[in-house]
């Protein structure tokens, strides 16, 4: 078994574009769930409207790249408003169900044959980020010794981590402001905040929009890193994997989602590489595990891991148990 390549692939994945996308998505969820206590299960929807807003603007309607980015942000803003109005006054599980349903509606609509002139059906849209890659200062591979990125990946890597850093800085400064303290107190006791004369609905809406914007950034990075949007990339699972990353690092902590995403992707790629090479060299007999089955083991472990995390250590690595909004109904 080639431990060296398994390890270096895992490192590349943990620091590369995959982890960046999940870190941004999880930062958004951190604003929703970690700080405000909102259970948004539709982060995939925010990512999808942003990514398709960009892709369709450029590839279908021929608009400039930056206009596409603006349209993507606008679409995510609109989605947050549409979702927030009916659900933010209700109990946590209603928001969860409504957001997961709308993410699913969006995925079906973007993949539908009827609208394939706009969104490309199940093939999606490609080649809309040339403007982004034209700005690439790297002309050759970026070598880190243990692993290396292609010139395009290196550019995504640079811009991506810059955005993650910027997002963390924004979350850090917002959450120590009076505005952020109101969000945290909404998480702890909504009625107390209301009795202080704060408009809880408005604060929750602002939090939903802010987190949705980070989700939009994640959608942009996912679309740009592969120059392609396809509906299956925005399935419900991506939301739950982002939740796993967030809970792993620690909800309600500025760096929690980032560390979580790095560890999540390291483990995913490491386990994927380990089991597929174990199955292919017949360390595990083919009857027990074929190559296809080997690629599923890591997802089984993610499910079991999420359960174990929530049961035994809901605060994750860095979080504070008392600050996690998991007891309310």
């Amino acid at each position, binding site marked *: 078994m080639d431990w060296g390549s398994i390890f270096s692939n895992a490192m590349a994945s943990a620091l590369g574009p995959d982890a960046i996308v999940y870190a941004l998505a999880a930062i958004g969820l951190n604003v929703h769930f970690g700080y405000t206590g909102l259970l948004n299960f539709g982060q995939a929807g925010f990512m999808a409207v942003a990514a398709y807003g960009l892709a369709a603007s450029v590839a279908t309607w021929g608009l400039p790249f930056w206009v596409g980015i603006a349209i993507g942000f606008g679409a995510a803003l609109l989605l947050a408003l549409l979702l927030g109005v009916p659900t933010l006054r209700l109990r946590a599980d209603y928001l969860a169900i409504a957001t997961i349903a*709308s993410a699913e509606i969006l995925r079906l609509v973007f993949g539908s044959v009827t609208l394939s002139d706009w969104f490309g059906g199940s093939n999606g849209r490609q080649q809309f980020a040339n403007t982004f890659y034209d700005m690439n200062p790297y002309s050759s591979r970026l070598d880190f010794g243990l692993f290396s990125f292609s010139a395009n990946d290196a550019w995504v890597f640079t811009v991506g981590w810059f955005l993650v850093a910027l997002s963390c800085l924004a979350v850090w400064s917002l959450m120590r402001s009076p505005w952020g303290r109101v969000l945290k107190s909404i998480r702890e006791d909504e009625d107390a905040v209301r009795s202080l004369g704060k408009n809880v609905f408005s604060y929750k809406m602002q939090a939903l929009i802010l987190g949705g914007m980070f989700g939009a950034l994640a959608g942009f990075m996912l679309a740009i890193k592969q120059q392609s949007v396809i509906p299956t990339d925005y399935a419900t699972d991506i939301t*739950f994997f982002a939740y796993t990353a967030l809970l792993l690092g620690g909800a309600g902590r500025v760096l929690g989602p980032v560390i979580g995403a790095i560890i999540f992707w390291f483990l995913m790629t490491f386990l994927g590489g380990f089991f597929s090479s174990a199955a292919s060299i017949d360390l595990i007999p083919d009857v027990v595990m074929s190559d296809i089955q080997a690629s599923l083991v890591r997802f089984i472990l993610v*499910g079991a891991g999420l359960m174990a995390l929530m049961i035994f250590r809901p605060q994750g690595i860095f979080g504070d148990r008392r600050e996690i909004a998991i007891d309310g109904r």
Partner: protein
Amino acid sequence: MLGAILLGAGGAYGTSPAALPSESSDNSITVVLIDTRGTEAGESGKPVPDVDIEVSDDSGTVGEGTTDEEGRASIPIPGLGSYTVTVDEDTLPEDTQLSGEGGNERTVNVVISGDMRVQFPIADERAAGAGFVSKLMTGAVSGVKFGLIIGLAALGLSMVFGTTGLTNFSHGELITFGGLVVYGFNRGLGLPVVLAGILTVIVSAGFGWVQERGLWRPLRRRGTGLVAMMIVSIGFALFLRNVYQYVFGGNTKSLSQYVSQQRVSLGPISLAPKEMAIMAIAFVAIALVCAALMTTRLGKATRAVADNPALASSSGLRVDGVIGSVWIVGTALTGLAGVLLAVDQQVEFQMGFKMLLLVFASVTLGGLGTVWGALIGSMVVGIMVEVSPVLGVPAELKYTPALLVLILILLVRPQGILGRRERIG
């Protein structure tokens, strides 16, 4: 070899095509027309001979052919590109007619070598020529059938929610459990579908008990919050779904019996016998559970726990025992929904996951935690799903109106049709 298989299927489309001998030259489109109406899976259908097929591109006709005794026509094409395959409907046998969107034309994009499959579903002439009212009624009846299947699952979800407050995101996987276990009994052990179905419901009940004892009761004892339990159920769903795919594989498979049946005409609508059986079984199961909830001691205890667990406990009710029974009954009902879905359609590792949001929509529409509400909501959702294509919603989007209603109901009446105001805030 470039081949296009045009395949006729009765009623529902999508039975597997006959193996295609690769005798054609490099660039040709091969068309096979097989009428599979009224055949069980495994049997090959009846070839449809003497049907004229035409292949054309932008500049005009490229080639013509007539299906032979085996229902096959091979038409050479000049190269890769986009072609239109047309079936001359006048040459079809008297009692057959093409159904489905697009009529007698299909566009085939020949981009790579390999089998390109295009389906021309063949239906009874009467059904295909049916008017709007008849389609609407057929859609409504399918909707009632789908609604009853959803209703079984929704009842299970609603009972568990009512007594424990848990919004169970792994409920879809409990439906899949029923489908996979019935497949295992039927195809693995060779049992007839009916017996396999009965055993599956028993196994599902056991699965519910094991889950409650092994997972949910210990969590309640630890004082785990409801949001935490919801996230645990998401992890459980991911876990189960991938275990299913690990064991069962990613393919869609069908049971050994009742796969495709000739529809029987009943006035303006036509139904396969299995569809009537599915509706009858689901209806009886739902009626029995509702009657039990209304009249038996356990049923009353269940409603008491749902109403106020603390009060029920202090009145001497064994709350944990009641919740255990609710899990057993709820999971058994959900397993039955999986069995019926497997008989109605096919078995796949995501079959329940795809229905989960419809089940959520049903219980939310009817009112979370209410039994009658769950049933009304399921009917509305089932009928919306099946009728919306008739009213012009594209078939691939037929789930979306029901999901939109889920969001809209939260705007106007968040407690659902029958829910109580106090539960929502």
